[in-house]
């Protein structure tokens, strides 16, 4: 009983981190039609910057802000300097963003070294929470809460605000959105920066649990891919439920069949792909 409860919590909280990544990936694809392979870099870079700031200042909150800002800066630079001038074809975009992924990965290795590092947990979350006979680490519950909060905020932003309506319009038809007076170019930069920030936040709040190490960028990117393949690219709902599913599958896979962990994620992905090529909630 304890095993199942704890593993479910772990899976769900990991799923929430994946949701932060997949939501950004999905949003960027929706507005800009770019499959951003450098999304893994945002995740790793944010965590590394946060690590340095935490070491220097001992403040998790400050580290969170600094890490997120650094990644937003990288995101805006990438969008303004590199991506904007690419032809609207998948392959050049994939190659360029993959190049950024490799370069950022190597720069991180060069600066922060190859040893796996873990962010210190904020002191508030050192204790555990007791629920009847079960004991939960409070940080995991915090992750879960952050994920749900972000999901609700994103949903409200997209469905209930003027800005969200503009984003939806740009997703549906950029040309017509532009002709109705929406500044799609500015919107694109904004969305890219926002997606990058979500990835950085995911990396930083996941840092105390998952740590950060060379290759983590690629690993998390792949899981985020599986999430959007399962859930459907460009769909917030898809990213949310896809992330929960993949988080649980990954966690139980690793706990129950450690040597087959890859299959517990990829086999369901293959099945979903065979039945619904555009994912559970994908439109096209």
């Amino acid at each position: 009983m304890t095993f199942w409860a704890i593993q479910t919590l772990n899976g769900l909280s990991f799923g929430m981190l994946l949701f932060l990544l997949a939501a950004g990936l999905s949003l960027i694809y929706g507005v800009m039609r770019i499959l951003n392979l450098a999304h893994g870099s945002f995740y790793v870079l944010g965590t590394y910057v946060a690590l340095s700031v935490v070491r220097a200042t001992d403040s998790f909150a400050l580290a969170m802000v600094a890490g997120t800002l650094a990644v937003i800066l990288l995101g805006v630079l990438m969008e303004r300097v590199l991506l904007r001038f690419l032809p609207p074809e998948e392959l050049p975009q994939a190659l360029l963003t993959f190049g950024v992924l490799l370069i950022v990965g190597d720069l991180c290795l060069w600066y922060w070294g190859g040893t796996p590092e873990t962010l210190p947990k904020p002191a508030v979350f050192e204790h555990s929470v007791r629920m009847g006979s079960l004991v939960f680490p409070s940080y995991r519950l915090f992750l879960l809460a952050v994920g749900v909060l972000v999901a609700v905020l994103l949903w409200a932003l997209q469905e209930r605000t003027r800005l969200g309506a503009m984003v939806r319009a740009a997703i549906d038809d950029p040309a017509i959105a532009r002709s109705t007076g929406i500044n799609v170019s500015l919107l694109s930069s904004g969305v890219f920066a926002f997606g990058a920030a979500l990835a950085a936040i995911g990396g930083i709040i996941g840092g105390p649990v998952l740590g950060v190490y060379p290759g983590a960028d690629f690993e998390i990117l792949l899981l985020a891919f599986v999430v959007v393949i399962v859930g459907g690219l460009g769909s917030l709902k898809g990213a949310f439920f896809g992330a929960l599913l993949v988080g649980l599958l990954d966690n139980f896979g690793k706990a129950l069949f450690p040597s087959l962990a890859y299959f517990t994620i990829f086999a369901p992905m293959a099945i979903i792909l065979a039945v619904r090529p555009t994912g559970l909630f994908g439109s096209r």
Partner: protein
Amino acid sequence: MTGARGSVAWVAAALALLVVLPFALTSYQLGLLTKILIFALFAMSLNLILGYAGLPSLGHAAYFGIGGYTVGLLSVKVLDNFWLDFGAGIAAATAAAALFGLLALRTRGAYLLMITLALSQVVWGIAFGWRELTGGDDGLPNVPRPGAGLPMSFADGFSFYYLTLAITLLGTLALWLVVRSPFGAALVGIRESERRMQVLGYNTWRYKYVAVVISGMLAGVAGNLFRVLQRVREPGVSLGPAVGLGADHGDPRRGRDHARTGDRRRADRDPRECDQRPDRAVAHGARADLRRRHAVRASRPPGAAPPVASGMRALEVEQLSHSFGGLRALDDVRLEVEAGERLVILGPNGAGKTTFFNLLTGIYLPSAGRIRLFDRDVTRLAPYARAQLGLGRTFQITTLFPHLTVLESVLLALQGRDAARFSLLRPRGAFGHLYERADELLAQWELAERAATRTRELSYGDQRKVELLLALAAGPRVLLLDEPTAGLSPAETTLVAAMIQRFPREVTLLLIEHDMDVALSLAERVTVFHNGRIIAGGTPAEVKRDPRVAEIYLGVEED
């Protein structure tokens, strides 16, 4: 011709260099050269799907790795025999490509990129995680160089280089044959416009799938050679998508240019010359039959009486309906068209005319109703299968094969319903009857001077003519023309209308047209669509008099 001879000379020189070079190299340099050859083979295999078929794959390295690991494991743990191990390695890579292709080809674009990357990572994950079998990140030590089972040993770097050279050349030759064949031409056509290839009768999925399998097989061959060269298989070196990407990087453009120069050369050559080559093998009977069919069609003067017994139904549509979400685009449409008839479909924008065509050709499947083509129910048939039954169409918005010449495009259209379309290893030039027929058509429709021009460089009027010609070249029995004169100047409109007028009489025509003069001059019967329903029909004169038609189509103030 000098161009061809020149390239033969270059190839010969490069080959000679590759043969003598090892004598001047240190063993390190020789190893490097061997590696270059192996990666060249790998890159060429990737180029088949990326450059020719236009399928962006990030997971090609998986086949490389699977080939390598299979050979490595078998030779270390089971039996060291070149034929067995090498064969099994290729078989494993091919099987993996066949499996992954089934999944990956269900998707396109960004999904295809993600799925190929994810699948290759599964392979990497197994190689890395299953330590007992693969040695994990330490790799698989002591893979022997091939010797056992062969007449001589390739254990030293020198002879292994020549083995690699021979195999790479064989692989290159195979790929060269494939891309020059009708199959290769079809792949390029799919890259340029998959939708058009489907309505020309190509089962595009099958072409892409075969390309993926061939490409995976050759990547497996490269992986086989690489594991022996490295002696130790370790994941990361070959399996990381970095290698796949490295190969991607420079390749697609080169591949494309290659395809273009190749095609241009083919196009410049006098087509007749191809026919003088002795025709061996492949579908002799079918070809003779086709030639007869083409000859019949070509010899009939335009405008002659329809040879088909009239009264036979070409097309029967029963209670056809289609909705987009909540919008009922087509509602209970019933229509019968006699063979050889020329029917014009009129109706304001949004009346459902193009939706009707998309349902007839199978681009959409209807919400309800039946479609019969020459008494055969085709309601659920794929677009290519309907095209094979003789249903052709043109598109309202011109989407030709932008980078192909007019001649190449017509050849693709002709080949679509020819036995030659599945030919994989014979050069397209050997199918002389296709070139002959293409020449005839181009001359007949006054496009001969444009034969070597790329379609995207044509004037808009010429593009519309090519659009019609492609549909006609596929040899349709029923042809759907979607606003063939849209966007043309009055002079061009007259030309295109005259072209349609001269279409063979036995071809049943359904024509969507906004230009009243064109419509009424071509029509034997008119059907009027409005809000997804047919509201009137009859001879042009009857429809002209119909007050409802005047009201919705010509405007009420006219009475």
